[in-house]
């Protein structure tokens, strides 16, 4: 039972990996690819690590640390890359600037 659940998590993570990494080869803007990578590298890897956690529950402290650092580092790296890619004021994509809130 646990095995099936763990394989489901790992395979879900693998599907996320392939789906989110595939757009890297295309010709979209960096930011669009960044959205795909946030699916693949953050959510996909988290699913895989949860799958591993189900297999070896006695190593939970280190795997939970892995989960936390995965989510924080990948998210912060996404923000930093997005910040560095865009210049002040000018964007190569998405000219519409609305006022949401």
């Amino acid at each position: 039972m646990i095995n099936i659940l763990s394989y489901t998590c790992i395979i879900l993570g693998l599907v996320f990996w392939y789906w989110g990494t595939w757009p890297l080869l295309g010709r979209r803007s960096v930011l669009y690819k960044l959205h795909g990578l946030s699916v693949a590298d953050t959510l996909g890897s988290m699913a895989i690590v949860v799958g591993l956690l189900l297999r070896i529950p006695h190593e939970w402290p280190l795997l939970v640390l892995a989960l936390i650092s995965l989510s924080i580092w990948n998210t912060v790296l996404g923000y930093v890359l997005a910040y560095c890619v865009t210049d002040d004021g000018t964007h190569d994509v998405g000219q519409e600037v609305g006022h949401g809130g």
Partner: protein
Amino acid sequence: MTGYLNIILRLTIWFLLTADLSWANIVIGVGVTILLPRGVTNVGLLKDWLRTLGEVAVAIPQAYKEAFEIMLYPHREETVVLERVKPRRTPSLIFLDIFLITFTPKTIVQRYHSRGWYEVHYIQRRETP
């Protein structure tokens, strides 16, 4: 009074890395946490903190939901939207806000203007009317 986030983060990393709840280890962990130098000592309201940490817990299933949405329906449009920062946010709360927005796959914070605006990059299914 110190930054809650700092202390929580340090203690969590310490206990998860050592995986040892003996008294000696707890004393060492708390001692190192307090002794390590820290930067800003500006603390927001505890209520804001609790609400934001609750939002973090909600954000994880929501992130998976959005991931399935953009997998099932192609989102091809990209837009940039300015959003206002909630009032009386301290730097670490703003960090958590940016973390929350960027963590969900459909939105990424591009830039934080110091006058209280985020630039958020969205992907959508079609052009907004």
